[in-house]
């Protein structure tokens, strides 16, 4: 009986029985919603250009299927091995971030989100999206190896130094959005690791000083300043930046309580919102589904984050907790900054809305992140 009981116990704890179905459902709902929003945002323009109105949707769906495969692969992989490979992963990320800066190898389009990418067989691979995961893994590894309950100042400096390398490299692309995300991941994980408020305060001040310094030296490009200042000084910012924000606000604002109906938004169907299918995808929700639709989507993100933080709680080992906390920080900051910029409370920076924005690398990186959450959840008992 004991053997049977032992088997039962072991059976009970088999990872496959502990898939977080709710997490998968929420992500699935977001991805499917994203396909509908993407169709609304792109079909008119494609039609006008004489192309298949479903072209973008199809491509995005293919990436989503690839993403699902990544989720399964990542989930079936024991996350604890990540600790072993953390150094390699981190190094690989840093190297790719360096390579992408080299003209000829990497490509950049400063008019859009300013992310740099590698062109591989017709696909664009954006290393900064994957750098986020790499940083999470590296920091989680370092934090879980701390012997103290709260990191002291030297630990803190070491952790920050590790984070700063990809942050600076990404910043040089100059992908301000990813830099902010990486910084937020670092801060979020430090909070969970128990960094002292005083240290975090000093960190914040240093960050502000560094940002000011960057402005001074001119490391921040003119259009980035433009996008940032649009929020605070709409009269004096450049016309394109102001136009972006205006059109975005008009789209969301005109949605009202119930929205103008699917495919019924004039801002969306008449192509008034620039970059609508990528960074400004949330305007489609706002315009066509109104306040109710927008809060529904926010509700999905709330569920997602609840599940992520819950997984961090449930994990029995610190590494899993830090991994999940890092992923949660990443989802949270991207969601907040993206929706915030669309509705005019955050500066316009190129940050994708997880699972909704069109873009292969983002979708795949976010899928990997979900896979990481799942593997932590599935293996929480041992």
């Amino acid at each position, binding site marked *: 009986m004991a053997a049977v009981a032992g088997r039962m116990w072991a059976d009970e704890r088999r990872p496959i029985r502990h898939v977080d179905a709710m997490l998968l459902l929420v992500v699935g709902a977001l991805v499917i919603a994203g396909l509908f929003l993407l169709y609304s945002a792109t079909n*008119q323009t494609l039609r006008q250009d004489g192309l298949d109105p479903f072209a973008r949707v199809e491509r995005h769906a293919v990436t989503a299927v690839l993403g699902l495969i990544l989720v399964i692969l990542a989930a079936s992989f024991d996350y604890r091995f990540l600790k072993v490979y953390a150094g390699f992963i981190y190094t690989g990320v840093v190297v790719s971030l360096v390579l992408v800066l080299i003209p000829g190898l990497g490509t950049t389009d400063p008019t859009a989100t300013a992310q740099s990418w590698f062109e591989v067989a017709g696909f664009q691979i954006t290393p900064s999206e994957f750098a986020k995961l790499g940083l999470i893994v590296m920091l989680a590894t370092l934090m879980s190896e701390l012997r103290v*309950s709260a990191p002291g100042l030297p630990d803190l400096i070491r952790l920050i130094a590790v984070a700063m390398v990809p942050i600076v490299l990404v910043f040089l692309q100059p992908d301000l959005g990813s830099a902010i995300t990486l910084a937020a991941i670092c801060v979020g994980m430090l909070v969970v690791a128990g960094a002292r408020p005083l240290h975090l305060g000093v960190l914040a001040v240093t960050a502000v000083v560094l940002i000011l310094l960057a402005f001074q030296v001119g490391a921040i490009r003119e259009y980035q300043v433009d996008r940032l200042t649009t929020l605070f000084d709409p009269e004096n910012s450049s016309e394109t930046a102001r136009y972006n924000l205006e059109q975005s606000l008009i789209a969301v604002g005109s*949605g009202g309580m119930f929205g103008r109906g699917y495919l019924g938004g004039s801002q969306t169907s*008449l192509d008034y919102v620039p970059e609508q299918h990528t960074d400004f995808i949330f305007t489609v929700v706002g315009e066509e589904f109104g306040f109710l639709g927008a809060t529904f989507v926010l509700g999905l993100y709330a569920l997602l984050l609840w599940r992520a933080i819950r997984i961090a709680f449930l994990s*029995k080992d610190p590494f899993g907790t830090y991994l999940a906390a890092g992923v949660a920080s990443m989802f949270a900051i991207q969601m907040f900054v993206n929706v915030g910029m669309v509705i005019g409370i955050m500066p316009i920076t190129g940050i994708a809305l997880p699972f909704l924005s069109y873009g292969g690398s983002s979708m795949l990186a976010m899928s990997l992140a979900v896979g990481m959450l799942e593997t932590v959840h599935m293996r929480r008992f041992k």
Partner: protein
Amino acid sequence: MEKASSRLRLLALLVAMMFIALSTRLWFLQVLAVERFTDLAQDQSIRFVPVETLRGRILDANERLIVGNRMSLEVRVNRAEMGDDTEAVLQNLAEVLDVPVRRLVQKLATDRFFARQPVPVAEFVSEKVTFYIDEHPELFPPDVVEVVPTSVRAYPRERLASHSLGHVGLIEAEQFEQLQDEGYGLNDSLGRAGLEAVYEPWLRGEAGVRRYVVNADGEVIRELGVDPPVNGHDLVLAMDLKIQRIAEQELVAGLERSRSILDDDTARYLSANGGAAVVMNPNTAGIVAMASWPDFDPEWYVRGLTQEQRRYLFESRPLLSPSSNRATQFALSPGSAFKPFVTLSALRHGVASLGRAYNCPSEYTAPGDESGAIFHNAFPADFGYLSISEALKLSCDTIFYDWGWQFYNRWTSDQLGPEPFQKDLRALGFSRPTDVDLPFESRGVVYGAADAPKNPDLFFAGQWQPGGDILISIGSSYVTTTPLQLATAYSVIANGGRLCRPHLVDRIVAPDDGTVKNVRGHCRSLRYPKSWLQYIRTALTRVTSEQGGTAYLPFLGFPHSEIPVAGKTGTAERPGHQDTSWFAAMVPANDPQYVVVVMAEQGGFGAETAAPIARRIIERIYGIEPTTNIQREGTD
């Protein structure tokens, strides 16, 4: 992990705050400010394209077309967009339009339009030129040069009634501010003079609008709908095209003939440099014809005035002033043509009465006047005692001088209250606008004691003198009138005592349903006994038909028994000029259908220039075989 879980709660709290911030902002945008953003979304995605309307036509009393519309392909240049290409574009335009560059530069160098308002540089260009411009955007950048089909005025009767009709022109910069509120656009035209200006709100019509949905690139996605334009109202004039033409032709011909008459006073030929003729229906106050010479061609304005035309219209010697309507804008002393109205006032106030006879000496000195001022009669003969009828026929000044003096005398002794003479004359419409439906009307003057302190230079010793009333009594110096005012006053005698508002337009007809709005004369009675008016009309028939009448010779051979003409000559001195020649007539005298007033500047005696013109006009209105050789002699 106890600590870790409390730190995770902190993370969860931060995340919760994010959601609160986002949904609060969403509530503000989508629920509280929804209207503003909905309007903004609509404003930018819906384009309104105006649909041009047709301006109302102008028709004569028999609904014959005087002013219509036609299409013109107009080349417009947007100065604001020219930039560095200015020279090249102008060079190309000059070539294709076949005009000197200098001319284009002149046309563009105007401050009449806003900087961003396209300036028309050529009208009625051929389709060939239009295609050429459209097909060569590299020579003619589309944002700089545009060819616009536009509806412009058509004048099938050429110069006919040019002063009354006025013209239409593009809106000017200085007017735009206020007109914007009335729905005018930058490229709209509006009436600038004459009837076109006065009846602008009726003629204009209402532009239609086509609504399109456009995308962010300004491409039209679909049409939303159209409010069709409402064409302007048509004006049907009281004017009879034929009589208008007669008046214009006879005025020109009469002035021309007078230029070969030697003027006794100046020993030079008469200048006869300008004049006016008004034919009015005294019963309705409708203006049947109104001629002014020199005139111009309204077509000039359609094509844009050339330098020479502009100079001719506005800078010719002041005596010519071709753009002025002499029938309503020139007020001159009427001379003896004024006497019937002096008679009416004298009768009303007992200064004169119909049964009495009055002495007509060759000279007149005001009783008790020791200044030595002597007022002469027009001719140095003593006519003895005359009835009022004979005084009018012969136009005896001295009798009227005495009435003028008596008015002065009674005013000073306050027997008649404050200036009843001036009051009566003003009540007849002198020195006040007739309110005719034309802009820029001159009001003329009838001076009285109250004017002396205001214009001391005009009066001897800065005071109202007996001479003031004396000169007014023969229509001289202190009284001026436009031909139209005089015609309006003669209409009072002709129609039994009613003063009416003269009007060119008889009715305004709506374009779609033909609804009619009649324009009325708004007459009011001046309460003169019909017998007095009858008496004056009869007396005035003697002017033209009896030997000794001041217009007897110019009307010699006229069929008086068929169509009796009551008329009065006027010869008025005008400082620095030859005399102004006047003639006012009512035909037929027993039941007047027309009042005809002719004024000829520097035309000498009334009988020399104005009366012959009036006779010709009357003859042709009634289809009487015209007399070939009118005697142009006579007196005042």
